[in-house]
Structures are given as C-alpha cells and as structure tokens.
C-alpha cells in the first residue's frame, strides 16, 4: 500500500472541498478501497474520511411515500431494517446475497454503488488493463471471461459491475443524490455508471469532489413489495460474486401483469435494466410463455466477450426463474440462502 495523507471531514462541505484535489479519494468503510490499495491497484495520495459526516446514516421514509437511504447506512442495517425490507424485499434479498456478514456490517450504501469491478485483470497489476492504465490494452480479451460482460462491452473493456444491491435498485428507478461545492444534483442510478466505450477509466458520472450523499427510491417502487425477488447464480453457494443475477418485480392486477421491472447483474459494466423484457410482460398473464418471451427480449443484444457465450442462455434462465419466483409471491421470510437457486420453495419449478 502506498503512503497517503489522511483527512477526517467534519461536514459534507468540508469533504467535497477536499475531494476536488488531484489524487484525493473518499474513504467510507474501505472494504473495497483498502483491498485495492493493498494490491497496488489504486494509489490515492490522500484519503478523505467521510465516516463521521453527520446525518448520512439514516433510512428515511419521505412525505411522498418514497425512501431515502443515507450514503453511510451499512448494508446489513439496511437489509435488516424491518420496514425497508417489507417495502423493498428484493433489495434486502440482494444485499444479503452479497459478500459476507462481516463485510455487510461495514460496507456502506454509497460504497456499494462506487465499488470497482472484480475483473481479475483489473486486479492483477501485471496484466494489461485499460481501466487501470488507459491505452495499455485489455488482457481479459482471450483470457478467463467467466465473470465478464455479455452486454454493453467494448473492445477496450469487458469488465462487469459486481454489485448485487444495485440490480434491484436500478429496477426500482433509484436516484443517486450527489453533493459538490456547486450544490446538489440528482442522477438516476440507471445513468450513473458508464459503459466502457473507448474510455473505460471513466466509470461513473461523478466529477472530482462530487460525493454521493443518499440513494432515493420513488414512491412507486413500493408497489412491487408482494412480488419482488432477486436470484443470483454464483460459483459457490455463498460469499461469491454473481456469474449472472436478476431482480424481478411484478404488480399483478386481475390475473395480468400491470407493471413489471427486470434488471440483470454480472452481465455488464453497470446494473442492467432490461426494459425490453418489461415491455413484453406488460398486460400479459404471468405464465411461462410470457416469462420466456421476456427473457428472449432482454438478451437480444447480448454477445459473448470471450469464452462466455453460456452466460447469455444462463441470463435468460435466471430471468425466467426470477420472474417465476416473483409471480409466486414474496416469501414472508427470506430463505436461509438468500437469492440462491438452491433455496427450495414449494410450488416453484427448479428449472424455470
């Protein structure tokens, strides 16, 4: 780890003022940042500790019925907040399917959104990586691509965004509240992360000194609470990043789908909202034919970035099964293995 200067910010204004300087990075729990620094992947000159900023650790229900999650709310506190989990069960399930209990106890809301890709070639400083070293090339091409992208990738970068939390959030139209010296602005989460194009080093819309202060869910996000699930296929039962995951949320009315939300994780450099799938589901009966058509629609633009064509069919199946689970209804209590395909639920086919 490189030596760095350390500043503890006492207010948001102080933090964003300090954050503008070149080489400065905000430090929250540090569960991703310290790992990257220990590996020499990132070498900030200065850490601005935001963990003591007042007021950013609250989960609020807003007057309009929406919810506001402070950027410093810990993943486990959010997942175990009874009211929040009841309103947004797929978000709670996604959170509890991510990382380990120890990491969830530390990792923050803002940090989850800001976490870097887990592409092995990004982490390995001996490999070429356009994200780490713009113009260096991409050793992931032709390499191990099991966890790499099938949607939205470019010749310059085939990495994926690793978050579980962001997948249901993007499905539910979450908004990112951002503070800077110039004031406050808001960006839909769907537009927050940037696809690689020819500048994979630019990962989000944030400018230097801009700080996430909260994530907001609009009032309409709670209408799916009775039919919302997250499903995550990974290489081991627990404590692994998604190979492919999906959030599915339905509002049923008179035996028909009145509203649908679908998003994918592990497939692109951003949480991937599948609007084409949602359009197919609108007005349809919640049955296998509709779910199959939705899954097809979601993946029409997918193409393998290496030896990972299997992920395209896997993503279709994960969507179908997530929709099947959502249609069956949100369980009263999360299964022992949250979001796991091995969590048995009666009445739901094991192979959707």
């Amino acid at each position, binding site marked *: 780890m490189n030596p760095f*200067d*350390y500043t503890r910010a006492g207010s948001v204004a102080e933090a964003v003022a300090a954050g503008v300087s070149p080489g400065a990075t905000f430090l929250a*729990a540090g569960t991703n940042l310290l790992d990257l620094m220990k590996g020499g992947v990132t070498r900030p000159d200065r850490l601005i500790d935001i963990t003591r900023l007042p007021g950013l650790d609250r989960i609020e229900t807003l007057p309009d019925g929406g919810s506001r999650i402070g950027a410093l709310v810990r993943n486990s506190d959010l997942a175990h907040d009874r009211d929040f989990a009841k309103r947004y069960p797929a978000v709670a399930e996604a959170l509890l399917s991510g990382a*380990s*209990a*120890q*990491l969830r106890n*530390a990792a923050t809301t803002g940090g989850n959104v800001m976490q870097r890709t887990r592409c092995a070639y990004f982490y390995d400083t001996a490999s070429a990586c356009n994200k780490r070293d713009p113009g260096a090339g991409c050793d992931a091409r032709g390499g191990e691509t099991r966890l790499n992208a099938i949607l939205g990738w470019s010749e310059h970068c085939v990495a994926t965004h690793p978050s579980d939390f962001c997948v249901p959030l993007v499905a539910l139209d979450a908004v990112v509240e951002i503070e800077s010296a110039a004031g406050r602005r808001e960006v839909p989460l769907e537009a927050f992360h940037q696809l690689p194009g020819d500048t994979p080093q630019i990962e989000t819309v944030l400018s230097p000194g801009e700080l996430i202060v909260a994530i907001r869910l609009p009032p309409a996000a709670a209408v799916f609470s009775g039919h919302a699930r997250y499903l995550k296929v990974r290489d081991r039962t627990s404590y692994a990043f998604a190979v492919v995951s999906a959030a599915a949320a339905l509002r049923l009315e008179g035996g028909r789908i009145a509203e649908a939300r679908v998003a994918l994780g592990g497939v692109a450099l951003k949480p991937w909202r599948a609007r084409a799938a949602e359009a197919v589901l609108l007005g349809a009966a919640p049955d296998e034919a509709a779910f199959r058509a939705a899954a097809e629609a979601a993946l029409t633009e997918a193409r393998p970035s290496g030896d990972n064509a299997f992920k395209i069919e896997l993503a279709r199946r994960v969507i179908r099964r997530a929709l099947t689970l959502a249609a069956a209804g949100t369980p009263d209590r999360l299964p*022992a293995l949250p979001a796991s395909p091995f969590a048995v639920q009666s009445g739901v086919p094991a192979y959707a």
Partner: protein
Amino acid sequence: MAFPITLIVNGTPQHLVLEDARATILDVLRERLDLTGTKKGCDRGQCGACTVHIGGRRINSCLALAISHDGAEIRTIEGLAVGDALHPVQQAFIENDAFQCGFCTPGQIMSAVALLEEAQTDGDPERIREAMSGNLCRCGAYAGITEAILKAEQRMQPSVQGEAA
C-alpha cells in the same frame, strides 16, 4: 506525520500514536497491543481469520483503518473468557471438535458470538452456515463448527426451545 488515537480494546482504553496512517485495526492489535489471538490470514477481507467486533458488530479488522476508528470499542478473542471461565461458544468449539489446526478459530469464534447476538438464524443449520460463510477453514472443520454454534445457542438461550414457533 503522527496521529494520536484511542481504541477501547476489551474494555480498556488504549492511547496510541500512529506513525503511519496505513495501519489497520488488525496491525494495531497484533503489533502494538500484543493481542495476537486475532490472526492475519489473507489480509484482504476474504478469509475471516481477523474477525473482531467493533461497536458490537463483527467486521474484518484487516480492512479497517485504525485511524478511521478513533474512539471505537473493540472486542477480540482475548476479551471473551472471564478468567478461566470460557465463553459458551469457546467451550462448545472444544466439545464439538470445531477446529483442527486452530488458525481460523479465533475468527470463527468471534464471528459465531456475533452471529448469536444478531439472532437471525433460529437454530437452523442452513442459516448458520450461510451466516458463517465469511470465515474459511482450510482444515474443513465446518461440520463441527456448525454443531458447536447450535450447541452454544441452545446453552445460551435454553428458553428458545419450544418458544421459537
């Protein structure tokens, strides 16, 4: 640049001056306070050997900068037993063969103690295994670890039996 901090470790305030902001809680426990029960395994948040409680919550101390935790209350494996009386989880680990080489054991026990305090698993072995997935055991003592946690849970909350439903 020197950074004065105070950590309350197993109930005792420890006033320290950090010469280097890079020190983690794990480094400080082991190198400055000679509390070597907490182990440095992967040092990257993957193995759980460094698990301690900060403010009553289990975390990976290898990914926690000490300087960022000025004033924190920390509980380590050294703070569990009262004199020679072992914590029920420690006792259950011995009785249920929950370790072999012992390197991961302090982290396993600190994680298990927190798991029981979190009260999310209700004596369900599957929920216990899921909640312990952040602690790796290269000897593969997982069956004994799960059994030990179940036994400790029964011992610590005898009233849970029959009331859970």
